[in-house]
Every structure is written in structure tokens, then in C-alpha cells.
């Protein structure tokens, strides 16, 4: 263990006299600001400046593949174009389908799994770890290996469906069919993120004190009654939290869907973020895509506000 006094003396002697004098004249508050300032400057440069710049670009005709063209202010044109475009509207609906069904299945299965894990059966810790594995994988890895699983000739998924339903495995293509592709991405996201919802629900279930159940037992409440009157109401803020969190995340979903379907077939799985990327980096409509990004940002920010409110309610409990 080094002598702390010796270290302090060494640091003091190594500090140049003029620096030491300047520091001695500063208040605690100023020193705190000096320490915080680099982080704040970095945050401003990385987060706030690009946001302000995107807002600016959303009112201009700037195109990143024509940087020398004169930048003209177009006012709210891009916002009007986006909010009256049937293609963007369709992308929003595809996003809504994806968000709604992933949340529905993840909440249902996640809460069910949490309820089972909370029973504390033999080996529950082992099974919790096994269930959590999909969540730990990279979306790129998940996208790629589910692409193989969905392969109509060699994919395991079609064979499993065939085993249970009797439909020939190569007679349907999950990623190539207009009707099945939106469900294919829902299945993969549900598989990957249900463990996350389960973890949040499990935290909610574990926070319910045992004495409430004991009181219910004394009152001869049935298990069914206990579930509807104690378990579900007390775990509800946590479920809401999971729903909002997954909602925000899935509204921005990009990587996994691009790897699975690339937005196809046609544009059936083209989520809002994929449309945004196409406008920005394939059509090079930088102003338009900036306006689109701002719209998505405001929506996600609005949802985040609901999330913060739900979080405060959980804290108050």
C-alpha cells in the first residue's frame, strides 16, 4: 500500500507554482466546472450540434452528393411532403404493425416466463440464463442466422412448421412472401427481446412483498383471485415500462430487419428507419431525410416522455 502522504507531496511538488497559485484562487464550484466542462463540450459537439444541424438541413435543399450546389431555404416543404406522402405513411404502418405485434407477443410471453421463473423451481437459475442468451447476441448475428433458419430448402424453421402442420417445407418462403415477411421479422424480434421483457417483469414480481399474499391466503382468496387482484396490478407499472421501452426501441428498428429482408419483398417490411436510410444514402435527399429524422426524433422523444412518467410512477411506489 503506497504512502498517501508521500504521493500527495509528490503531486504538490510536481505542480508548477503558477498553476498551483491559480488553482488556490478558484472556488470549489469553479473547480467542479473545470472537471465537468470537457464532458459537456464533448456532449455538445457529438449530440447537440448534429441535432441542431439536422434541424437546419431539414429546412434546406441540401444534397450530400452535390455539396457545391447553392443551399436554398425551402421552409416547411420537406415536412409537408413527408406528412402527405403515401409511401412514408405505408412505412409508418409497417412500423406500427411491427411495433404492435412484437410488443404484444413479448409482453405476453415475457410476463408468462417471469411468472414461471418467479416460482423458484429446481434449476430456475440455469433456465433463466438459458432464456437470456438471445438477448445477449448481436442483432447482426441474429439477422444472419435467422436468414438461414428461414431458408425454404435447408432452413430448420420450415421443417418445424412442416412437422406440426404437414405443409411441405419448401412450399412457403417466410422472407420472400408478402404476407409472411412482416410476421417473420416479428418472430425474430420476439425471440430476441422476450428475455428482456421477462427480466423487467421478474423485477416487478420480486418487488411484491410476501405478506400481501399471506394476507390474501388468510382471507381465503383463490390463486386466480390473487393473480388478478395482487400480482397483475402490482406488476403493471413494470410491464408498462417494458412496453414503452420496447416500443421506443422497435420504432427505431433498423439493423436486424435490413439483414433479414432489406425492407422487402417490395416494401412490405420497409420500416420508417429503412425509408429514412434510403432517402438519405440512396436518393441523397439530405434535406428531406433530415426532416424525416426530426419527425422520428420528436415521436421517439414524445414516447420517451411517457416512459419517464411511467418510471417516476414506479419510483413513487
Amino acid at each position, binding site marked *: 500500500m503506497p504512502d498517501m502522504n508521500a504521493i500527495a507531496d509528490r503531486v504538490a511538488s510536481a505542480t508548477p507554482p503558477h498553476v498551483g497559485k491559480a488553482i488556490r484562487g478558484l472556488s470549489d464550484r469553479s473547480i467542479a466546472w473545470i472537471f465537468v466542462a470537457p464532458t459537456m463540450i464533448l456532449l455538445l459537439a457529438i449530440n447537440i450540434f448534429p441535432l441542431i444541424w439536422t434541424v437546419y438541413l431539414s429546412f434546406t435543399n441540401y444534397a450530400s452528393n452535390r455539396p457545391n450546389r447553392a443551399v436554398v431555404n425551402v421552409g416547411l416543404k420537406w415536412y409537408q411532403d413527408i406528412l402527405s406522402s403515401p409511401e412514408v405513411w405505408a412505412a409508418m*404502418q409497417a412500423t406500427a404493425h411491427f411495433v404492435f405485434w412484437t410488443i404484444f407477443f413479448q409482453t405476453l410471453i415475457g410476463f408468462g416466463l417471469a411468472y414461471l421463473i418467479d416460482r423458484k423451481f429446481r434449476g430456475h437459475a440455469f433456465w433463466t440464463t438459458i432464456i437470456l442468451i438471445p438477448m445477449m447476441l448481436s442483432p447482426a448475428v441474429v439477422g444472419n442466422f435467422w436468414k438461414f433458419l428461414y431458408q425454404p430448402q435447408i432452413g430448420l424453421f420450415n421443417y418445424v412448421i412442416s412437422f406440426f402442420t404437414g405443409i411441405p417445407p419448401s412450399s412457403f418462403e417466410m422472407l420472400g412472401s408478402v404476407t409472411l415477411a412482416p410476421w417473420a421479422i416479428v418472430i425474430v424480434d420476439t425471440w430476441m427481446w422476450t428475455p428482456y421483457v421477462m427480466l423487467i417483469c421478474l423485477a416487478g414480481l420480486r418487488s411484491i412483498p410476501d405478506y400481501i399474499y399471506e394476507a390474501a391466503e388468510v382471507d381465503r382468496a383463490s390463486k386466480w383471485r390473487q393473480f388478478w387482484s395482487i400480482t397483475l396490478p402490482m406488476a403493471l407499472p413494470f410491464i408498462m415500462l417494458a412496453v414503452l421501452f420496447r416500443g421506443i426501441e422497435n420504432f427505431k428498428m433498423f439493423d436486424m430487419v435490413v439483414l433479414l429482408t432489406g425492407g422487402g419483398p417490395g416494401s412490405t417490411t420497409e420500416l420508417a428507419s429503412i425509408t429514412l436510410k434510403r432517402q438519405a444514402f440512396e436518393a441523397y435527399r439530405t434535406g428531406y431525410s433530415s426532416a424525416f429524422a426530426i419527425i422520428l426524433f420528436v415521436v421517439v422523444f*414524445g*414516447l420517451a*416522455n411517457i416512459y419517464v412518467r411511467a418510471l417516476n410512477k414506479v419510483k413513487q411506489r
Partner: protein
Amino acid sequence: MSLQSQSSPSNGAQRKRWPRWARRNVMESVAVALIALGVLMLVQPFSITLYGWSFSVVLAGTVMFMIVSKFPE
């Protein structure tokens, strides 16, 4: 203790002055409802007019939430 006794009447007066309908909890609920309505308008498949107004509603709700979250309880 003395600080409490000095500040309590003014706090009470301030609390009385602040209208009940403009309390934080109520206004936050209105803002959250606006945001939720806007998001629903954005993703519904029935009317492109509603879709066109959705962003304005979400923006109004978000700005309102940011303002009213500073209101007293």
C-alpha cells in the same frame, strides 16, 4: 424549524394561487394523452388527413410535457 415557520405561509399562499386544473399531474396526463393520440394518428391506416396532422399533435404534446413538468405538484 424557524425557517419552516417563516416559509410555510408564503408556500401555502403560492399553493393557493396555483389553479387546481393546472397542477403538474393533471397537465402531464393531458400532455401524455396528446402524445399518445399523435402517435396513433401517425400510424393509423384509415385517413391520410389524420396522418398529416399527427406530427403537429405529437410536437404539441411533447412541448407541453416539457413545460408542465416544471409546474408544482
